[in-house]
């Protein structure tokens, strides 16, 4: 008998097939405004920026990326911006070739007010490692896409999200407290995370 069949046979004998699934959870009602999201994001070490009008976005991002070094912009960001201190993410590059990126500018999709997390759909970060290799991560987020809790956040994921290989929830910068519980930002990934709220981005 293969290991698979052996394990499954024992599990089948032990499983009783009696207790049914409890169904959906009914969360308590909570606020989902930008202010609540921004204060949670701040508490987890992130920087809320804005919200800005889409017309001001290019200017706001230029400010954030000034003198930063190599700035790489992911898909879904470019059409809303003019020229600036950034380059578009080249297609088909190895993740190793992005090791020197100072700022990654990526399009976030869903914001979660209860935990400050922002969704990063794999389609907006085709090189999986980019949001972890950069020194600073900037995520764009339409304020209309903020939901109160994680249940609604996951319900909002596009139905094909799990077919694009990776989908990230990111809440604040990389952090560790492994040395005497002292919080240190930038353990491996980005040392800082800014989320730029946009009021009317299309």
């Amino acid at each position, binding site marked *: 008998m293969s290991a698979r069949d052996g394990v499954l046979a024992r599990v089948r004998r032990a499983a009783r097939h009696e207790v049914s699934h409890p169904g959906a959870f009914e969360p308590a009602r909570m606020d989902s405004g930008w202010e609540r999201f921004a204060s949670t994001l701040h508490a987890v070490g992130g920087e809320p920026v804005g919200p800005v009008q889409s017309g001001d976005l290019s200017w706001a991002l230029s400010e954030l990326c000034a003198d930063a070094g190599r700035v790489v912009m992911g898909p879904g960001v470019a059409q809303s911006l003019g020229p600036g201190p950034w380059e578009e993410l080249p297609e088909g590059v190895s*993740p190793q070739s992005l090791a020197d990126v100072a700022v990654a500018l990526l399009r976030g999709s869903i914001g979660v007010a209860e935990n400050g997390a922002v969704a990063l759909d794999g389609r907006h970060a085709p090189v999986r490692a980019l949001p972890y*290799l950069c020194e600073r991560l900037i995520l764009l987020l339409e304020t209309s896409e903020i939901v109160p809790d994680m249940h609604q956040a996951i319900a909002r994921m596009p139905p094909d999200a799990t077919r694009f290989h990776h989908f990230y929830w990111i809440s604040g910068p990389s952090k560790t407290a492994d040395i005497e519980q002292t919080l240190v930002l930038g353990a491996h990934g980005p040392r800082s995370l800014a989320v730029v709220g946009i009021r009317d981005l299309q």
Partner: protein
Amino acid sequence: MSELLDARAATLLPDGEPLRRHDAAVFDLRRRRDAAVAALPDFEALRTHAQAIKTHTLDYLDAYLERFESQAAAAGAVVHWAEDGAAHNDIVHGLLRERGVRRVVKSKSMLTEECGLNPYLEARDLEVVDTDLGERIVQLGQELPSHIVVPAVHRSRAEIGELFHVHMQTPSGESDPVRLTEYARRDLRPRFLAAEAGITGVNFAIAETGTIVVCTNEGNADLGMSLPPLHIASMGIEKVIPTLADLATFLRLLARSATGQPITAYTSLVTGPRAGGELHIVLVDNGRSRLLANSTHRSSLACIRCGACLNTCPVYRRAGGHAYGQAVAGPIGAVLAPALSSQAEGRRLPLASTLCGSCSAVCPVRIDLHGQLLAWRRTRAHAGAGERVLQRAAAVVLGRAALLRAAGALVRLCWPLLARRWPGNPLGVWLLGRQLPAHPGASFATRYRRLKGSKR
């Protein structure tokens, strides 16, 4: 009694500063958890809901495992099955060998600790680098993690500075956590970039979609699974949950229970390999199906490894994780060890508990941890011949007042001998880390009578 006093007592945290620091550090996590819980009105309802999902999932685990396997395979992952830790290690090593891999980066995985993967691979000339900072520290110190969430919580900043000085040539005497973390980051970054394979654990596996979910704060798992072409994810078979919607419930509970954060910095959902890469998922039994068949203890498989029960446990806080001698310490470690550990000493761990119930009160999936510990004691009392004799003797003594008085007098008589260390003292090892208190000179009953008499 002597069952409790095995050689493990020698690995207790030393009295004084190390103990005080450890106690304060882990109880601080407990306090942060409490603050996060207080801020969420539906936390108790979430716990109940999570428990119900887990109870259901374990009851249909065969169906969910098969569903997960077929969905993960449809997304391009290769699914392997391992009966035990040895088979798991063999599968992982085979994958690495076939591809000529020499350098591996690893993120935290309690399962690979349980299987002893690192020493297995290192003995076969592979370079395995633990990348979670706490795991890296215990790897450099050549010891087991002492906590499932903060593996190096037993180490002081000065000790960590010294380890880094020896192994990474950092300046001697450096003990600033910010600078030490920066040194580790600089040491590990090139290792990530050069690695040919990344090994990660799995926090949740979603049957509906074949997705694995990995939660970290450092982002080390994400670098490990997105830079090298080969990603191996190891998971116990109990990690499966039914749907993506169910994930929300567990994500709301996990980090709040662990560190008081509303969610970990990174929650990564991975379905299939990245473009041009490979994803292999190893499903490990290692005693879990046997535990599932045990109706008294199967609920311990619901554990999501948050560490809340460790942080609140008066025994863990004072003893430290190494005293347990297992990959998983604390109350949940003591509950799982009799079923999952290959070592005989693991079966004795349920005896080392006060049964205060603090663990059960904080468990995010409502495992009745202290009830489980008590149940293991009962099993043990009925199983071993030595244990049976001891229990019967205790029943006889405790059942007859005269015998109990005589036994008490005998212990008081022998006290000065027991309290001193000398070869042959049955309390010998226990006394390495502790002292017996001075005894009160008379039995409780005697003192009670005296007190009553003096009041009249």
